[in-house]
């Protein structure tokens, strides 16, 4: 039964294009990060780890580490890379999607003239930028240490920049994985827990178990692919397969490592985007 009431001419204002809206979401998501305690804690943890490593190397002056820039970077990354790649992904991506449902922040966003895919893309870009900022802090401290011990040559050492590029792939892969978990869990605590477990311990554990028990190449493990970030400093680059007695050890080649990390990013983001577009705010 319709009623015929008059009045109320329709006023229209066009919403901006998708790209502008994505940038808008990124901008305010980043602002939210910067003003949040969580991001401050992430930055302090990263800074603390870097200062700790600086003090240890400065005090003990391990000869194996201070041989040359390549050895220095390789060792520094070997001890800290997992930590540096995992932390921003856990802190920023761990509940990126689940919190929109659990904390009801999505209710205030989705009812606007903006596609869900634009909200997702904006959040992803913000998480990547914030993660890269954390990675950059780590790399800057590493570079500063290297330049202290090896002079300006540390800056000119091109492999450092190649490794930095690979590290961004590793961070992107970790963020992709964290987004994946944050989309499949409705509870942010679970998604953060799963991301943290896998990125900090799980992959290393599974990697060892699978390789030792089955002698299979763990090509499906993010940390296996991320080895290239530190291996690129080794000369010559380690052989793909090395046998010690009955054990076989695999090393990811650079292309293989890049593909693995890219796959984690692409698959993780693709799945989480599909879930975010389809999940209901019920």
């Amino acid at each position, binding site marked *: 039964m319709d009623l*015929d009431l008059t009045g*109320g001419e329709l006023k229209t204002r066009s919403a901006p294009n998708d790209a502008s809206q994505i940038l808008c979401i990124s901008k305010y998501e980043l602002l939210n990060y910067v003003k949040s305690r969580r991001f401050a804690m992430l930055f302090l943890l990263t800074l603390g780890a870097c200062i700790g490593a600086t003090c240890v190397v400065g005090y003990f002056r391990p000869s194996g580490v201070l041989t040359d820039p390549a050895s220095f970077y390789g060792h520094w990354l070997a001890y800290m890379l997992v930590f540096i790649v995992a932390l921003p992904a856990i802190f920023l991506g761990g509940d990126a999607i689940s919190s929109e449902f659990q904390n009801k*922040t999505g209710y205030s966003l989705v009812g606007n*003239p903006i596609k869900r895919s634009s909200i997702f893309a904006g959040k992803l870009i913000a998480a990547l930028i914030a993660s890269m900022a954390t990675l950059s802090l780590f790399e800057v401290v590493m570079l500063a240490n290297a330049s202290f011990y090896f002079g300006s040559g540390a800056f000119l050492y091109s492999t450092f920049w190649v490794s930095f590029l690979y590290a961004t792939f590793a961070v992107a892969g970790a963020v992709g994985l964290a987004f994946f978990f944050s989309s499949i869990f409705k509870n942010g605590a679970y998604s953060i827990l799963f991301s943290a477990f896998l990125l900090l311990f799980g992959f290393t554990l599974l990697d060892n178990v699978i390789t030792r028990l089955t002698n299979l190449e763990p090509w499906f493990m993010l940390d296996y692919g991320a080895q290239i970030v530190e291996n690129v400093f080794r000369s010559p680059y380690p052989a793909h397969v090395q046998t010690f007695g009955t054990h076989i050890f695999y090393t990811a080649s650079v292309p293989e490592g890049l593909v693995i990390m890219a796959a984690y990013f692409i698959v993780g983001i693709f799945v989480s985007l599909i879930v975010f577009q389809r999940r209901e*705010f019920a």
Partner: protein
Amino acid sequence: MSTKPSLEAVNLSKRYGSFTALSDLNLKIEGSKCVGFLGPNGAGKTTTLKIFCDMIRATSGSAYLNGFEIREDKKRALESCGVLIESPEIYPSLSAREALSMFSEIKGIPKPERRKAVEDAVDIVGMIEWVDRRFGSYSKGMKQRINIAAALLGDPSILLLDEPTSGLDPRGMNEVREIVKSLKKEQKLIFMSSHLLSEVQDVCDEVVMIDHGKLLLHDTIEKAVSRFSANGEESNAVFDAGFSRPVDVETIRSKLSQLGSISRVEKIDQRRIRVTCSGGIKMQEEIVSLLASLQMGLISFGQSSSALESTYLNLIGREVA
């Protein structure tokens, strides 16, 4: 396409497994007015509103806002809409100003106008002093006010409000009602769900009632009340009359009974009576004239606040039976 704000549901259904939340809802509302959306818990009110703003997906059917189907063209459908569903949260580290600036930008409010648009909206809800504080530090009521301000941004032609007074103290509830009343003058279509029947009767022009996901009624409040009276007899209406001094209800009853269409006269308290009658506006005029002529100090006469409640219970009761 219509130039008036419009909202339309066409065979809208939503099922969760074997549970049907919404069943073939057909509803068309057009023009500037305020429409109350009533129904018991689980009736499908929030489900309907969520479908209209893309929070959930209809199992079948279509939902149109200003002529645009929400799934097919969400941006166009919502670009002249303000939405408030289920007391949402805003990023806790952002201030209200920052959060509302974000929504303004998403809605396409030009940058030079954005600051004023935000401050105007916040001013309407009485939060201008708090606009630069973190959203996370607000009380529930303050958050709801900011959420209302967010819905008002950009001067939308349609407002979809899901229990907008939820979480507010009595003063806040009253203020929100006044805001909604003032918005009615601004050529907007306001579709507002509520549990508070008195609120709907006070604020709205029309009422939509649903239960078990089915449309029971869509009409003006006056017609809805007169069609379904408290005793179930159609075409009866209930009015409350107030006096400045204590009155003798028997005297009034005997006088009013002369009008013929009066079915009941009850005493509410010493200064108020309730009259149940039929006959529409003409009969109301006659009742008011007669009560005034008695010189008992008549100071108010209007539709009973319990009238809509009676209609509601009557309809819901019928549905349950």
